[in-house]
C-alpha cells in the first residue's frame, strides 16, 4: 500500500531560503540612520530630517534615561529596591519608540520600559515602587496612556490588541485627523515572542486589522537563553507569516528606531493595521540585579556591543556637527544629577503601604466577606499593638 517512490522529491529552494544564518550584525535588512561611529546614513524607506532640537532632545532623553537606570541599580545595591530590571544599552530603542508616540497613543509596557515611561511623562520615582515593593505601579494608566508594567511575559500583547480594537470602535482610526487618529504600542522582548499570547495577539491584530505596533526589543537574551533558542530566523520575519509587515531596525540607533516606529504608528493610525518592529539591540547589563550573566555569556560579546553604544554615537554626531556646546552638556549633566538626587531621596522616602491597604481595591465593589476580613485584620492589628508583641 505504501510503495517506495521512484525519487524522493525535496523541497525547492524557495521553501528553505528562510533558513539563512542568524546575521551577527543584524544583517542587511537592518534599518539604520546613524552608524555606531556616529555617521548619518540614509535609507530608501525610512528616513527623516531631524532638526537640531529634535536630535538634542533625543540625546537628552537617553542620557537621563541611563541616569535613571544607573541610579535605580545603585539603589538596589544599597538595599533600597528589592530588584531592578536594567535597560542599559536599550536607551535608543526605548526613546526612539517613546518619542514617536502622539499623546493619544497608548502603550503597554513590560517591566523594562523605563525609557518609554520617561517619554510618557511619568515621574521616574513612580517606577521604583514596584521594585521596592510598595505598590504595583503608581501612575494612572488612563491618564498617562501608559499601562502598568506587565510581568507575566507576553500577556500585554493581547491587552494592546484589544485596546486597539477599542480604538477602532471609538472611531479614532483612519479619520485623517492627526490629533484624533490613535494607535497602540505593545512592548515585549525576544523571549516573549515564544509565548502563545504574543502569537495570538498577532492573529487577532491581523484578523481585525487592529491599529497596534508590536515593538519587540530583541536584546539577544531572555535571562540566560540566547535568541537562537526562541527563533532560528530573524524575529521581524515572524510577522510575515501572520500577514503583516515586520521590520528590523537598529535598536541602538535612536534615529532609525524613531523613524521606523513613527512610520509603523502612522500606518496603524491610518487604519492599515499592525506592524512588528524588531529593535535589534543588546542587554548590556544583567537580566535583573539578581542575575549573574557571567554564568552563561561571554564578556567578549558584551565588549563587542559596547562599541555600538546608543548614546555615544549620537554624542559624536552632535559634537562633530557642532550641534551641542559646553553649556548644553553642562546643563544636561546638572539635570541628570538633579534627577539622580530626586530618585535617591525620593526612593528612601517612599512610604511603606499601610498593612490594611492590602484589602483595598480587590474589587470595585467590596464584598461583605472581604469587609469582614479587613475589619478582623484591623481589630487583630489594633489589639496586637495595644497588647505589645508576644
Amino acid at each position, binding site marked *: 500500500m505504501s510503495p517506495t517512490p521512484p525519487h524522493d522529491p525535496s523541497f525547492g529552494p524557495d521553501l528553505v531560503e528562510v533558513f539563512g544564518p542568524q546575521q551577527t550584525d543584524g544583517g542587511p535588512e537592518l534599518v539604520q540612520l546613524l552608524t555606531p561611529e556616529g555617521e548619518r546614513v540614509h535609507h530608501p524607506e525610512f528616513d527623516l530630517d531631524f532638526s537640531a532640537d529634535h536630535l538634542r532632545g533625543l540625546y537628552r532623553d537617553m542620557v537621563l534615561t541611563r541616569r535613571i537606570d544607573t541610579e535605580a541599580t545603585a539603589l538596589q545595591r544599597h538595599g533600597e529596591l528589592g530588584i531592578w530590571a536594567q535597560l542599559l544599552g536599550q536607551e535608543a530603542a526605548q526613546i526612539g519608540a517613546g518619542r514617536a508616540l502622539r499623546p493619544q497613543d497608548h502603550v503597554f509596557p513590560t517591566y523594562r520600559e523605563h525609557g518609554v515611561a520617561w517619554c510618557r511623562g511619568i515621574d521616574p520615582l513612580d517606577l521604583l515602587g514596584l521594585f521596592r515593593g510598595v505598590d504595583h505601579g503608581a501612575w494612572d494608566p488612563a491618564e498617562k496612556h501608559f499601562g502598568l508594567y506587565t510581568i507575566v511575559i507576553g*500577556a500585554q500583547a493581547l491587552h494592546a*490588541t*484589544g485596546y486597539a480594537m477599542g480604538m477602532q*470602535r471609538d472611531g479614532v482610526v483612519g479619520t485623517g485627523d492627526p490629533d484624533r487618529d490613535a494607535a497602540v504600542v505593545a512592548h515585549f522582548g525576544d523571549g516573549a515572542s515564544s509565548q502563545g*499570547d504574543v502569537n495570538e495577539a498577532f492573529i*487577532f491584530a491581523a484578523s481585525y486589522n487592529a491599529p497596534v505596533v508590536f515593538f519587540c526589543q530583541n536584546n539577544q537574551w531572555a535571562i540566560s537563553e540566547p535568541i537562537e533558542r526562541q527563533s532560528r530566523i530573524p524575529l521581524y520575519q515572524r510577522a510575515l507569516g501572520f500577514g503583516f509587515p515586520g521590520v528590523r531596525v537598529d535598536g541602538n540607533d535612536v534615529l532609525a528606531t524613531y523613524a521606523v516606529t513613527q512610520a509603523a504608528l502612522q500606518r496603524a493610525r491610518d487604519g492599515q493595521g499592525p506592524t512588528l518592529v524588531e529593535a535589534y539591540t543588546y542587554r548590556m547589563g544583567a537580566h535583573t540585579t539578581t542575575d549573574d550573566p557571567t554564568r552563561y555569556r561571554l564578556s567578549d560579546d558584551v565588549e563587542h556591543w559596547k562599541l555600538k553604544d546608543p548614546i555615544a554615537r549620537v554624542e559624536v554626531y552632535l559634537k562633530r556637527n557642532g550641534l551641542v556646546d559646553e553649556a548644553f552638556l553642562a546643563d544636561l549633566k546638572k539635570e541628570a544629577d538633579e534627577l539622580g538626587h530626586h530618585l535617591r531621596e525620593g526612593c528612601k522616602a517612599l512610604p511603606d503601604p499601610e498593612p490594611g491597604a492590602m484589602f483595598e*481595591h480587590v474589587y470595585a465593589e467590596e464584598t461583605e466577606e472581604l469587609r469582614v476580613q479587613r475589619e478582623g485584620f484591623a481589630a487583630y492589628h489594633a489589639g496586637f499593638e495595644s497588647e505589645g508583641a508576644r
Partner: protein
Amino acid sequence: MSTSRITLAKGLNMGLRKAMEDDPKVLLMGEDVGKLGGVFRITDGLQKDFGEDRVIDSPLAESGIVGTAVGMALRGYRPVVEIQFDGFVYPAYDQIVCQVAKMSYRSKGRSPMPMVIRIPFGGGIGAVEHHSESPEAQFAHTPGLKVVACSNPVDGYWMIQQAIASDDPVIFLEPKRQYHADKADLDDTARPDPLFTSRVVRAGTDLTVLAYGPTVKTALAAAEAAATEGRSLEVIDLRTLSPLDMGPVLDSVRRTGRAVITHEAHVNLGIGAEVAARVSEQCFYSLEAPVLRVGGFDTPYPASRIEEEYLPDLDRVLDAVDRSFEF
C-alpha cells in the same frame, strides 16, 4: 412590559439584548457568537441587530479572547465573553487569574475590569470529554473575581444584566443542560434580587440542602421526595459562589441543624468544602450532624454513558440526607 414564558437560553438571550440596548459600551465576543448565535444559540440574532463591531466572532483562541477583552475593558468597554464550553476556559486561565482578577488591585482601582465571562458548565448532555466540566471552585479561589451561577430562566434574564452592570469581573456560569429544558414566566417589570445573594427556594425545617446551577433542580426534587417521607428539607440556591452569601445559609442551618451541599464539581476542594468549613465553624453549636457533600466523584468526568452515575442525583442527595439523620 409583560409576562412571557421563556427557557433559560431565551432568558439569557433577552438579558444580553437588554444590556446591549441599555449601554452601547457592552460588547459580546467569542467563538461562533455571530451568525451562528453560539453553539447554544444564546447570542442568537444579536449580531444581526447590533452589528459585527458589537458582537464579535473571534479567532479560535481563548487566551486571545479574554486577553483582548482585557484591552477593550481598559479602553472603557464592557466586554461579555463567551467560552464555548467549560472545558475550554483553561487556555484563558492565565489571563483570567493573573490579569482580569488582579487589574483593579494592582492599579489601585484605576483600571477596573467590568468584564463578564460566560461559561456554559456542567454535564448531563451526553457530550464527549471536556464538554461537561465544572470549573467554578478554581475561580472562586481567586480573589478579584466574582463567581455566580444561575439556575433558572428568570434568574438568567436578570443575573446576566446585573453581572454586566457590575464593575467587577464576573465569571458567569450557565447550567447548559437547563438551557432548553424548563420554561418559566418572566415578568420583566419585577425587581430582581441583588446579584450577590443566595435565596431560599423551598422552605423547610429538618435539613438544609444547598445547591447552585444544575443541582438546584435536583435538590428541589429531593425535597419533594423527602416530603413524601415526612422530612421537610429547606433548599437554598446559592446563586453566588464568590462571594458566598452565608447569611441565609447560616440562618437556615441554625434552624435545621443539618446541611447537605450538592454540586457537580468534584467533591475534593469543591465549593462544598468551603461551605462545609464555614458552616462548621459558624454553626458549631447548632450542628447535629456534619455538613455532608454530594458531588461529582474525584475522577475525571467519565464517558457520557455513565455520567448519570457520576452526577449527583436525587437518590444520592437523599442518601446523604439519610446519613445526616443517622448522626
